[in-house]
């Protein structure tokens, strides 16, 4: 595992525990934020919400030292999904305001999942669930069923607008017991 951990051991700790419970090996792990100075980079093409930038940032942190196997599945777990986009869209509809075209694809979690898959060359299944770390069982099922050799599992917990909570995310790259990934020290294609 790389060592860019972690102010928020709770979310990541839960994800790692779920991986071990499912009998999977954790090849890499990361949390966002990892410290008080972590500033979320913006993500071109995504607007008005931290959800997609949060997912992209924690994925990059998890994969930057680890070239994923092929095919690697992407399993995106988020209890509420992109709640800020949903609230923004509902407000625009209720008040007769213009709905921007970028919200079209941003309204589903697959969009940023597709961004991450394209950036890191993940050609396995793309699965989005409303779940916490326990949803990692879905990744274990994909690996057992044979549609992927590894899975990048991300938990993205975006704070609802107006709540006191803060955004947080964690990611693990998991495989079945046999190692199939190699340390590259660099970025995947």
């Amino acid at each position, binding site marked *: 595992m790389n060592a860019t951990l972690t102010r928020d051991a709770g979310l990541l700790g839960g994800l790692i525990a779920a991986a071990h419970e499912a009998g999977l090996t954790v090849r890499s792990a990361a949390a966002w934020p990892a410290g008080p100075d972590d500033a979320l980079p913006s993500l071109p093409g995504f607007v008005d919400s931290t959800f997609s930038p949060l997912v992209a940032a924690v994925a990059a942190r998890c994969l930057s030292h680890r070239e994923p196997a092929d*095919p690697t599945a992407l399993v995106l777990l*988020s209890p509420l999904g992109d709640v800020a986009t949903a609230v923004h869209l*509902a407000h625009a509809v209720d008040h007769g305001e213009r709905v921007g075209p970028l919200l*079209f694809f941003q309204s589903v979690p*697959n969009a940023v999942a*597709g961004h991450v898959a394209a950036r890191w060359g993940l050609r*396995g299944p793309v699965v989005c669930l409303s779940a916490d770390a326990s949803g990692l069982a879905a990744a274990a099922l994909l690996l057992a069923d044979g549609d992927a050799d590894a899975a990048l599992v991300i938990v993205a917990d975006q704070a609802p607008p107006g709540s006191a909570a803060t955004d947080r995310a964690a990611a693990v790259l998991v495989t079945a017991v046999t190692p199939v990934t190699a340390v590259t020290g660099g970025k995947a294609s």
Partner: protein
Amino acid sequence: MPDARPPAAVTGVAAVSALGPDAETLLAGALAGTPAFAPVRRFDVAGRRVQVAATAPGHPDLAGELAGVVDRACAAAGLDADARRDIPLLLAVHAHPAMARAGDRAPLTAAAFAHALAVRCGLAGITRAYTSACVAASTAVADAAAMLALGHADRVIVAGGYLVDPDQFAVFDAGRALARDGQVRPFSAGRGGILLGDGVAAVVLETPAAAARRAAPVLAHVAGWGRAGDAFHVCQPRPDAAVPARAIAAALARAGVDAGAVGYVNAHGSGTAASDAAEAAALRAALGDVAATVPVSSTKSVHGQALEASGLLELVVTVLALRAGALPVNAGYRDRDPDCPLNVVTEPRAARPDYALSLNSAFGGANTALLVRAA
């Protein structure tokens, strides 16, 4: 490629769509090729570029409609209250319907919505809520079949629901994805996009042994399944077709059959220019010469795009069409598009194929293939 796996028996189905309140009216509309698109009355569409969708009458309630299809699918499968108790529920849904406009949003997760549905329907097994857009339901079916094949369960219920709503209507309109001519014309020259449609469906899947033990009626089998990702773009399909072809190949491999066995394809067929051309290329890559001759239709041309629920609605159509001995019609077809060199079913047609593919694709480059075998 994955190993061959035992199939999942389909022992009960139920559906609600704009074509009618049950699976029979859905099938009748699909076999006749009767589109259900009409001006939207459910909410205000003034100011939208397009004002048409396929909606059931009135203001149906998603939780109530889902409970209705789960109850009816269980009843069709002969599962009484005792037998339901331990069955897992996999639900495909966009979000908790109340979340976006609630005060305290944190408890209103799609997972909580799925759990409440399970409690309401007397299902006490695990629940899981799939939110992967237009492959949510088909992914849930693939996962259910895998759970059965790997011995994780004897029986799984998959449900999915989408009712045309003002928020998704607004974003699809803003994204210029809706067909301005008010029809969905999959694979046709001059196709202009998608139209949204209501879809609420439930399917009972069992291991063949579990179905046989209680002498349950078997409507069809999910004999193979595959899931793969494009790794290409946020919302554009990969033009080289390699990945959706991989999902189809995985479905054939799990069923242990080759492309020549496929006698009908219920395509994703969204009706958009790029997506339909990419799907035609994927069929060519996966099925070879069979792609030019196998009958293909997209029933989105009659019931519309039911988003998270579409894969399940289309699986129900495919299962019932195999039983009916007729192929669903691809409505709205005008002229051949050289980018879609397929044998599109444009008129009612009798046929009794042994195997049919049901395909779905979504944003994020997600692709699924379900291979249905006639009972």
